[in-house]
């Protein structure tokens, strides 16, 4: 007889021998936690119950279990905390935009947030490949796609997918040690390990990991010491067939200032990208999010948002939060007109233009070159390229005249400016890499 059935039948027997009040108080939330040959271990919710059952009901329990299973000779009791859960406080109404400490939601050992699962990950044509790869990896980590490299623009579900893979492995294969860490945190850990002379401790910590997940790996760009350490960690895990999963906002080829040996490692496994979701998928995502937040979303409103916000799922969620707040404030349900009005307000905000200095800084940061070199007369390849991109943005987004740009950028000839602008224009048409870089820089400009 299985232990669950055994206990249920035993309880039915015990119930006959004692009063109902006693039975409900002492035997509520009990079960058999282990059953080994001649010994049964009964789990009880707290120490009070343990003391009482042991002293008052031990004989009855032992007898009932013996009657059902002849081999049981003794019964032990342990306190098991998992059987009780505190009641949720219903009074606290959640305030939508109140931020939380991320550290509390995440699991102590794995760094994973249990809310990210495959169940609430919405699949569409845009992320099918990435989802399939992630799902395959979570079924048999370390054996098929290693490393798995996912890339997409921000706010399209990379982190969700990464963590879902981690959570699934953790829940399915209890023995596997999963560890999730954002690259920024990884970098600061390395820096503090170096500073405090604790590099050995750091290495030791990563030695026994079965599944290492690093988010936003592009932040390693330009951090040579970190890249070196990561390279060693990577190799050690890889050689032991441990699964490595990485994410980035761009293809490994487009990550600047990354050593070639790391880049080739990244490209050695499976690379999958997540594109932009189509309107239907966006609407489906919105519906799911609204449901999670207990908010009834009108179909018309849903499609209006899905059609107007195309680039990021995070933005979809942002709008949804705005609508929920609006509804809380006005106590009226949200219709299409209110939605349109909210969109108008937002559009007015986002047309704020950027300045010359901001363009210069963002572009030089991106290509990792000096601002002064760009303003000067260096003919180094990456400097020339950055200069051309700066000119491109000045013309395209700030509508500066060619001669004004020539003057601004350190007294160049205005024909150089015209040439630079048209060169980038053309490149964008035919060279995918440049196109991607430009859209990244644009995003960086918008984000800060």
């Amino acid at each position, binding site marked *: 007889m299985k232990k669950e059935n055994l206990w249920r039948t035993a309880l039915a027997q015990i119930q006959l021998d004692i009063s109902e009040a006693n039975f409900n*108080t002492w035997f509520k939330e009990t079960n058999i936690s282990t059953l080994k040959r001649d010994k049964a271990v009964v789990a009880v919710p707290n120490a009070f119950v343990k003391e009482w059952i042991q002293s008052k009901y031990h004989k009855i329990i032992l007898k009932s279990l013996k009657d059902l299973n002849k081999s049981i000779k003794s019964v032990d009791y342990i306190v098991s*905390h998992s059987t009780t859960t505190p009641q*949720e406080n219903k009074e606290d109404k959640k305030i939508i935009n109140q931020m939380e400490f991320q550290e*509390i939601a995440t699991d102590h050992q794995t760094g994973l947030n249990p809310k990210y699962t495959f169940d609430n990950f919405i699949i569409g044509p845009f992320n099918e490949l990435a989802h399939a790869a992630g799902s395959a990896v979570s079924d048999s980590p370390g054996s098929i796609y290693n490393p798995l490299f996912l890339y997409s623009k921000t706010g399209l579900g990379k982190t969700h997918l990464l963590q879902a893979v981690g959570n699934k492995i953790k829940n399915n294969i209890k023995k596997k040690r999963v560890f999730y860490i954002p690259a920024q945190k990884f970098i600061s850990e390395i820096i503090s390990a170096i500073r405090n002379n604790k590099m050995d401790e750091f290495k030791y910590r990563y030695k026994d990991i079965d599944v290492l997940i690093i988010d936003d790996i592009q932040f390693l760009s330009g951090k040579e010491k970190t890249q070196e350490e990561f390279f060693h960690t990577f190799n050690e895990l890889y050689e032991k067939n441990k699964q490595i999963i990485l994410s980035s906002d761009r293809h490994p080829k487009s990550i600047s200032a990354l050593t070639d040996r790391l880049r080739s490692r990244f490209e050695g496994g499976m690379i999958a990208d997540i594109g932009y979701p189509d309107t239907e998928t966006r609407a489906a995502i919105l519906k799911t999010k609204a449901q999670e937040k207990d908010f009834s979303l009108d179909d018309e409103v849903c499609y209006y948002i899905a059609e107007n916000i195309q680039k990021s799922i995070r933005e979809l969620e942002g709008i949804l939060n705005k609508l929920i707040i609006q509804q809380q404030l006005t106590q009226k349900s949200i219709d299409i007109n209110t939605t349109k009005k909210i969109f108008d307000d937002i559009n007015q905000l986002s047309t704020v233009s950027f300045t010359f200095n901001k363009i210069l800084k963002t572009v030089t940061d991106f290509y990792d070159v000096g601002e002064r070199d760009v303003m000067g007369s260096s003919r180094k390849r990456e400097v020339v390229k950055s200069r051309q991109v700066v000119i491109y943005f000045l013309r395209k987004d700030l509508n500066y005249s060619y001669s004004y740009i020539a003057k601004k950028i350190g007294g160049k000839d205005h024909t150089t400016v015209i040439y630079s602008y048209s060169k980038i224009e053309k490149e964008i048409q035919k060279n995918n890499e440049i196109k991607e870089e430009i859209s990244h820089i644009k995003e960086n400009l918008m984000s800060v």
Partner: protein
Amino acid sequence: MNINILQNKLKEGLNIIGRGSSKSTSLPILKNVLLKTYNNFLNLSATDLEIGIKWWTPVKVDKEGELTVPYNSFSSFINLLPNKKINLNIKNNNLLINCEDYKTQINGISAKEFPIIPKIKEKEKIIINSSFLSDSLLQIIDIPSLSKVKPEISGILFSFKEKELKLVATDSYRLAEKKISFKKNNKDDFSFIIPQRTAREVVNIFKEINKDVEIIFGENQILFRVKIEDTNEPYIELTSKVIEGNYPDYESIIPKKTKTKIILDKDDFLNRVKAASVFTSKVNEINLVFSPNEEEVIIKSNNKDLGNYETKIKGRAEGDELNISFNYRFLLDGLNNIKSSEIIFEASDENSPGVIKPVGKSDFLYVVMPIKN
């Protein structure tokens, strides 16, 4: 049992253990108090199976015995008696109470039916003044919220490390940490989480006593014990379960560096936040604009229907300009628990937590997450 005891003394004992007796339960015995004598002591116990409380007092015992009687009736009756000698006598599961010309009988239930309050296997022990412990707990006691997802944070963390005890509470929106220093080093570092309710009962029972309390930590259990002065005999014992599990890595929540810092008069700031709260909407949002160059903070709130509010408060400031919004309730909870006359308010950007600390002391810290705007 046959004993004599002063009404006042018995009343005290009943008051203390009353918090442990169950208010509503399927098992009537849990509404009872256990009276028991041995070695010239009277011992009262009550439990609701979550916590158990025991109280002792020396009495002259003419005949040993034990019995349980309904707590509510027994204590209400004792409260009404004059402060004179009371004689308690047990006959056939009935408690006979004689005091001057009052003669009463309460029907009891046999002591054998009463739950055993578990003994603790002592692993670690610390000793601290009970009033000081209660005051410290009061500073953070209201913060935890009951959560199904994370039962660990529904309690209060006691973390003992070297010469310091840290009491920590969080509800995932804010976090408070209270530090208590000890003269002696403990052998080992250890930590445990007690339920919020247990912390409340500790405060209720021990705050006024002002004696040393031993905190004894054992498997699954925690015991708070005060002894009768100059003896090794127990006076009050509170036993409670502890919350199993690992407390989150809370230290990583506390910002190590911040970009903006201002020192403000606490009461002035508190009043202005309260005033701003009148004009908040349902979201409870108030907006703080830090201008270190002007040495001031602007406090703003806005309610579409009611109107809006704006005020400036001067303070010694340094760092960057910053515009950040908070739930005013969370700010008040922090400010109200700071004892100093001036506070330091620190923050970095509109998406990172703010920190409120007393000036001149480093024993308290309050971290709060902003509201996104």
